[in-house]
């Protein structure tokens, strides 16, 4: 039996990896993204004392958390240049998978588009997250 709402949590990473992420809706607070940073990652970035917590924003963003979107114009140009008429077909199939960025990237990799992450562009809302992280450091 599933606990109520259990299926609505998104998990990224693993409990035994450097990072474990949970994303879920929290009643009264909106949508919560929880980043659990483990000792391996903290040690690697030399976060060992309470004072070092002020380096967390630089550690988290943009490397470990950011919102991105595919640059469809750039991708289309690349596909048409590489595959000609077949490029349009790949583009349409990629767009049909757009509800998950992971699916799109996987589809592109399978269709001979190497390093598809180069078509990702950060969204402007990342700046609001950067500001929120800086605010937290100032208040901490």
């Amino acid at each position, binding site marked *: 039996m599933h606990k109520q709402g259990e299926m609505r949590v998104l998990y*990224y990473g*693993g409990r035994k990896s450097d990072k474990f992420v949970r994303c879920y809706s929290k009643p009264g*607070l909106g949508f919560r993204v*929880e*980043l659990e940073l483990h000792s391996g990652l903290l040690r690697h970035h030399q976060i060992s004392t*309470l004072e070092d917590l002020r380096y967390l924003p630089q550690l988290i963003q943009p490397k470990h958390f950011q919102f991105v*979107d595919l640059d469809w*114009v750039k991708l289309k140009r690349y596909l048409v240049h590489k595959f000609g008429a077949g490029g349009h077909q790949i583009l349409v199939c990629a767009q049909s998978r757009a509800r998950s960025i992971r699916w799109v990237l996987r589809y592109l990799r399978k269709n001979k588009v190497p390093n598809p992450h180069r078509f990702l562009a950060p969204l402007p809302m990342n700046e609001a997250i950067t500001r929120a992280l800086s*605010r937290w450091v100032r208040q901490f």
Partner: protein
Amino acid sequence: MYAAELPTLNLVIGEALRILAEKERSETQAPSSLTVHSKYSHWACLTEGTVVRLDRLQVVSWAPPGHKPPSLDGFVVTRDSFVRSQTTTSTYARCCQYKSVTDDTKIYWQYSRRKGWLKPWKITIVADDSTGLSRDQIERVLDHCRFYRFLTIEVALDFGPQSAVNREFVKRHAQFGKSRRRAQTR
């Protein structure tokens, strides 16, 4: 006949090449990243209410042999009990639980280690959902710890109810480094 048509054909090809070059130039002048940005510019203001909180902190620390968890200012001990081994490897025999007198912050202070390679104390501080952990609360704990080391730091980013961020948005746009989304196994 062909010689007569050649100048006309050259003109047509020249015109077609010019149109293509102009189209290419116009696409280059409007960078694609700007296209993406303008599409989502209205969401930028919707994430303004984003709040960052320190949600959980886990540390291990050295302690003199046989030392019990101390009493903490602003916290009351709610429970101090034996903990049965959870797996085949037993770790800490006892856990002292504290609760803040002002909010819902909880501390789990594990001690009486069962293995020599474990640190004498393992402390987990769980924040109140609405406030997060404050520096003062952490310092109250760490004042009693020598040679401590962070095991886990959990940072929570709360996107307000009126923000564009929800489960579908995260699936569509979020990237967490190299970490991949785990399939729902059950």
